[in-house]
């Protein structure tokens, strides 16, 4: 639709910060990984290992809003929501209730979303966020409330230039009714130059928290964790807040940082030119790194919220709240300190891992049996290199279990580092597990000495001068033969073993 993004004028970032003060706010939606949906017993596509590839196959009458179907609250989703609220330092409401948010859009069959409005389950908290240089920042939390996710729309046609009224949308209700917690921050002041970085660190911290609680798959690339970034700026010295925009579709940590920066620069250019900011949603475009205008923000009243008459209040007992509080895992900051000590990494080694956003992946890799140093080498090396080249988060490329498998293959001598990189390439390309790629691409190191010896003998026979030098004790001459053998083996041999055998055969 509004494709004017390319025309956005941006002010230099430093100049924008000199003249304006940014104020941030975030709404993060977390899909809970309960077995079933929020209000129905249909299986939850956001559960671990769920397969929702067949459209409209995980749908109960409640999820479609069929007449007469009544919602019933998932007890586990309530427990997860309370745990999350507690982990965010929030108070848990002694009584909270659901509300209808009314709007017409085919992503929900009921024409309303069941959410919470004036009585959210959790309110008034704060989250400690650690920045790249180790500085901590406190983000104030306004509330966390329970709601249901909407179905998925696929828009078909249009962009092909055929504007003949043939455009339509396809609706899949598998996602409708997935339990969500929406976490809303208060305005975040005083971030100054670090605004984009603080935004990214905040979302990363929320991801770490829900992962440590084990209440969500927390994959941003799969929509388990979704972020809307509110950005406003105000001229230095102005007390009144500037008009904010809400950037949606910010679906990677890297994008959070880029989108905040972009909006600051875009809004600064408009205000500096005497224009005014329109309160609207903006869409983040990962490919171009720009935002474009969406719909104008409507007043909250337009949703005509009212208490959901089909559901009763949720009143968690103090005992339940204390039970869940006692079961909370350590905070991400404390967890990191412990992990660093366990792994024996230096501050800077550890910070590199955290800053690359691969700590959880690294931890999972070590949990599968890899040595911490090896896990670090792969995640910060080849995997991060590919991720950066593609502009995606490293965790989306390959699973920790495959990385640990790859490391084990190298440790066992089945792969050299060079072969392992090729195997990784295959895994990233979706060719299967490392074992499967090794088999399919025939990449295993030739560990059969007889095959190596045959190649060595051939190489020695064709280079008699080299053979003579080795016999005369000029061991370094062996390099030429080793090279020829490695070439004959298409690199699939352990060079150290080849060297041993060359020296052995030369003396034979």
């Amino acid at each position, binding site marked *: 639709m509004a494709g004017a993004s390319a025309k956005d004028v941006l002010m230099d970032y430093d100049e924008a910060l000199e003249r304006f003060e940014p104020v941030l706010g975030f709404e993060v939606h977390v899909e809970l990984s309960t077995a079933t949906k929020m209000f129905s017993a*249909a299986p939850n596509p956001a559960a671990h290992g769920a397969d929702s590839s067949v459209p409209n196959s995980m749908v109960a009458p409640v999820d479609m809003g069929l007449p007469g179907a009544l919602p019933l609250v998932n007890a586990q989703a309530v427990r997860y929501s309370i745990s999350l609220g507690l982990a965010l330092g929030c108070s848990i409401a002694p009584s909270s*209730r659901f509300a209808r948010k009314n709007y017409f859009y085919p992503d929900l069959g009921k024409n309303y979303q069941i959410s919470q409005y004036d009585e959210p389950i959790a309110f008034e908290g704060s989250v400690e966020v650690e920045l790249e240089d180790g500085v901590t920042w406190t983000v104030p939390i306004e509330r966390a409330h329970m709601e249901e996710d909407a179905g998925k729309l696929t828009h078909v046609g249009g962009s092909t230039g055929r504007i003949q009224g043939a455009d339509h949308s396809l609706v899949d209700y598998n996602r409708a009714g997935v339990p969500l917690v929406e976490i809303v921050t208060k305005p975040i002041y005083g971030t100054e130059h670090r605004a984009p970085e603080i935004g990214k660190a905040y979302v990363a911290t929320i991801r770490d928290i829900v992962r440590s609680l084990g209440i969500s798959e927390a994959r941003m690339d799969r929509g388990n964790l979704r972020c809307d970034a509110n950005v406003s700026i105000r001229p230095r010295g102005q007390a009144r807040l500037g008009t904010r925009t809400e950037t949606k579709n910010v679906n990677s940590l890297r994008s959070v940082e880029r989108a905040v920066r972009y909006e600051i620069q875009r809004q600064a250019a408009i205000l500096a030119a005497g224009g005014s900011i329109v309160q609207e949603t903006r869409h983040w475009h990962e490919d171009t790194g720009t935002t474009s205008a969406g719909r104008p923000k409507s007043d909250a009243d337009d949703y005509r919220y009212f208490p959901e008459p089909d559901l009763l209040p949720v009143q968690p007992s103090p005992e339940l709240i204390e039970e869940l509080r006692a079961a909370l895992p350590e905070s991400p900051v404390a967890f990191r300190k412990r992990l660093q000590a366990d792994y024996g990494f230096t501050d800077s080694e550890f910070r590199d891992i955290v800053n690359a956003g691969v700590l959880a992946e690294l931890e999972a890799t070590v949990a599968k049996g890899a040595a911490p140093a090896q896990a670090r080498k792969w995640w910060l090396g080849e995997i991060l290199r590919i991720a950066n080249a593609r502009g995606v988060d490293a965790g989306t490329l390959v699973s920790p279990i495959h990385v640990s498998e790859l490391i084990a293959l190298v440790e066992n001598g089945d792969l050299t580092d060079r072969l392992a990189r090729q195997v990784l390439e295959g895994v990233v390309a979706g060719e299967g597990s490392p074992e499967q790629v090794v088999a399919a691409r025939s990449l295993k190191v030739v560990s059969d000495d007889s095959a190596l010896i045959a190649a060595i003998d051939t190489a020695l026979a064709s280079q008699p001068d080299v053979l003579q030098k080795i016999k005369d004790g000029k061991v370094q001459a062996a390099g030429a033969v080793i090279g020829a053998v490695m070439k004959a083996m298409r690199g699939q041999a352990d060079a150290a073993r080849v060297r041993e055998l060359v020296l052995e055969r030369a003396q034979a």
Partner: protein
Amino acid sequence: MPDASAEITVADVQHLAGLARIALEPGEIEHLAGELNQIVDSVRKVQEVATPDVPATSHPLPLVNVLRADEVGAVLTQQQVLSGAPDAFDGRFRVPAILGEEQ
């Protein structure tokens, strides 16, 4: 007749009709504004008997925490889901082009 002191104005009815996707004739709008004001007046009478020690309620039943165990139950088949669809394609509902966007 529209009453200047009325709480529900013609503009309110137009706005609500738009939100509810209901097409109304001008005459209907004025008529409904009048009716809605009568309803508001009637409901206001309740305020006369409500005292500060009666908490507001959204439900007549003295029940809370009606919850369901997180256990998978029956789902509809894709065919059942789509059985009432005016149009479907590739296992999904096919609906006219959407001009708005997600909320």
